[in-house]
């Protein structure tokens, strides 16, 4: 998908243990904390209703703090107001994770804290303990897949042309917190170096699949990678292996250099926060072709003869175009329409 300035919508799922979250209507900028919470350690099960001598249904009425409350050791969780009071107190510093249907209470220590940050300048339109959704306008380009956590930073061009590969030698700590435009291809070595130098993320036409395994582990797939705590952020715009970015995809990066940008990994989108008038969206919709051996993705440039049926080297009969890249089956061509 190619460039477009339009309203975007991003949903951020929240992990267990939400403590705070942005309310609906709050204006946020990419990078702002949308929600924060805690990670729990080994929980203990406290006798709640049983200890207090109330039914599970009556437990909420005698609880002094709501589920989710963070308490210090000894703090009263629930207490009956009778003459001979019975109480449930926190056995250690921690949070109430859950109240069971039986009236028992799951209480766990806090071992870490997390926060989820916005990847879009806009307004919170939905907010629950499950997810926070932000909507706003931005320049956007849709990639094929992204790996690693969401990233926010200033957009920086790290190659001289759309056909170039991101060279490790061009990356140093001065690029810290930036999002690098890596040209047609970024190898694992360059991405690893960028991550080590504190670069926020890398955007490239293609990334070698084996390199992704090196960076993200053997469980990486064409759809993403399992969450990792300390992994780089990579957005593949076209595919895997090698590629060249079409001019219609690469040239719009030039007026956007220096603008704040964000990579939303789950939806594989790059947002750039610049005014709508900073450039004109490309009018030509680029076409890309999958290489005959499926090892590369290339832009289709120049004239193409009308489609005709051909017998390919594999003996598959298919409609195909005669192009500058050779005979390409129509099934291996794709246009990059705007998001």
């Amino acid at each position, binding site marked *: 998908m190619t460039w477009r300035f339009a309203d975007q919508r991003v949903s951020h799922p929240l992990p267990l243990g939400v403590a705070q979250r942005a309310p609906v209507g709050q204006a946020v900028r990419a990078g702002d904390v949308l929600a924060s919470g805690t990670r729990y350690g080994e929980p203990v099960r406290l006798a709640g209703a049983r200890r207090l001598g109330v039914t599970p249904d009556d437990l909420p009425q005698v609880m002094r703090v709501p589920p989710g409350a963070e308490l210090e050791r000894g703090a009263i969780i629930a207490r009956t107001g009778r003459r001979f009071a019975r109480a449930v107190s926190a056995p250690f510093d921690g949070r109430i*994770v*859950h109240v069971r249907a039986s009236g028992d209470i799951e209480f766990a220590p806090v071992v870490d804290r997390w926060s989820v940050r916005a990847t879009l300048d806009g307004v919170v339109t939905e907010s629950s303990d499950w997810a926070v959704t932000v909507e706003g306008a931005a320049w956007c380009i849709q990639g094929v897949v992204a790996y690693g956590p969401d990233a926010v930073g200033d957009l920086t061009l790290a190659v001289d042309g759309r056909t170039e590969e991101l060279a490790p030698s061009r990356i140093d700590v001065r690029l810290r917190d930036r999002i690098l435009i890596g040209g047609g291809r970024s190898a694992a070595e360059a991405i690893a170096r960028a991550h080590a130098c504190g670069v926020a993320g890398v955007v490239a036409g293609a990334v070698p699949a084996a390199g992704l395994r090196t960076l993200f582990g053997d469980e990486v797939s064409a759809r993403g990678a399992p969450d990792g705590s300390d992994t780089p952020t990579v957005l593949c715009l076209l*595919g895997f*292996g090698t590629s060249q970015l079409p001019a219609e995809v690469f040239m719009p990066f030039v007026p956007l250099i220096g603008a704040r940008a964000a990579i939303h990994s789950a939806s594989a989108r790059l947002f750039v926060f610049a005014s709508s008038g900073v450039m004109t969206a490309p009018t030509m919709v680029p076409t890309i072709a999958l290489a005959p*051996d*499926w*090892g590369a993705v290339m832009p289709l440039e120049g004239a193409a003869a009308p489609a005709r049926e051909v017998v390919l080297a594999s003996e598959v009969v298919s409609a195909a175009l005669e192009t500058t890249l050779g005979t390409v089956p129509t099934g291996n061509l794709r246009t990059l329409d705007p998001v």
Partner: protein
Amino acid sequence: MTVATATGLLATVDVAHETSANRIGPRTDGADLRVTTGTPLRLAILVGREPANLAAARAAALGACADIVLTLATNDRQSFVDRASLLRGADPDAVLVVASARDQKGVLDLVEALRCAMAGRPRQPALLIAADERMRAQVALALAPLVIEAIPGPAAALARDAIVSRLRGMRRPASDVVLRDEAVEAAARALASADGRETLVLDVNGASTSLALANPAGAVIALHSHLGAGMNADRVVARAGLERVRRWVPRAVDAPALLERVFNRARWPDAVPATTLTLALEMALAREAVAHTLRDAERSGISVAPFRDAGAIVCTGRLARFPRASQTAIVAIDALEPSGVARISREKPDALIAAGAMGSRGIPDAANTIEPLAIVMTQWPKRPTLVTVTDEGGPVEQRVARGAFLLIPTNGRVEVRVAGSPERVVADSVALGVIVDARGRPLELPQRDAERLPALARWHNALTALSAEGLT
């Protein structure tokens, strides 16, 4: 809308591929039915400590083509928080609880973790509980206000069918959609009924793999998975491992380059294999998709022997669309490892699936939808054995030793005899001939490239399954 013809009511069916669709039927303005793989269904399984519970739940998932995103057992040693975090991360569309009476305490722990994990979720997952009445009542209480659906234990076939129907209903996006797995099962049922013998429909397409074994009485055992030779190719690699896919490619190709191709194929729906190498890769992916679906069946306590013993094997989907008929045959044989004697056929492009879709709506007519390819005889002779194949051209004798894999081309009606055996096999005309497979079971490929590549080349050459360019 249907069209009345001399042969009955003929519906028009759109058979969806990865992004395109092929229309089968008389109408040009639209279709009465659509065959699709349906909406992916993320299923979490919560099971009791007995292995039978887990096997039964897996079997139900395999029958419904549901993706198991998480399995939690009552005897796992995870904490409440770990379980809740895993369930939240899995984000299931449906949760299947299978447990026996003595697991009550453990099941309550699991469903409490589920309730905690789903807090704040706008749309709650469907909760299917296969347990006794007392436990169901306890679970309903623990999960309130979430609504549960009581189902019988999936150990019984009828109960499993009920779960499969319910899960399929969740995958069906519209009423005019026939799920591809439903169509495959209906096609198998129609063919077995027409042919009067056990028939296996082996369907591999870009996004899913199905094996449906039907007997003439109409009973079907089916396995469905989201492993495919196209947009789910990366799932095959993730499950089977890259090396298991690479071992089927009959020329030297390094693993990183192969992974690139698999990933690009997965993100490029309906990509065409333009070279022999990419075609060989697609064939390799199809083999492993079938083999892995069978492995899943074994893990679910389903015996795969009946699938391998089927007298008729019909290939559909991409498996049936390889350019050469021999490519379909060799992939089916390598993947399934059939035993005994079987007739291998393939569907005419999408015709059997369309017929199956109509069959699933009560109009079974699978006539003239398949093309018989070959008779495959699996042997493991102690000493070289004489096989005599008689066709319109007269008898041909072939000595078969262990390790052999060969094709005896035939013309017209075929009769096959094996020396020392009173059994004879008779079949109508087949496109290729008689394939004798004496490579042994399970089929083992040499580990080292220097031995594996010549073996693969020999097997492919025997059936003329790849051009010389593809083998060099």
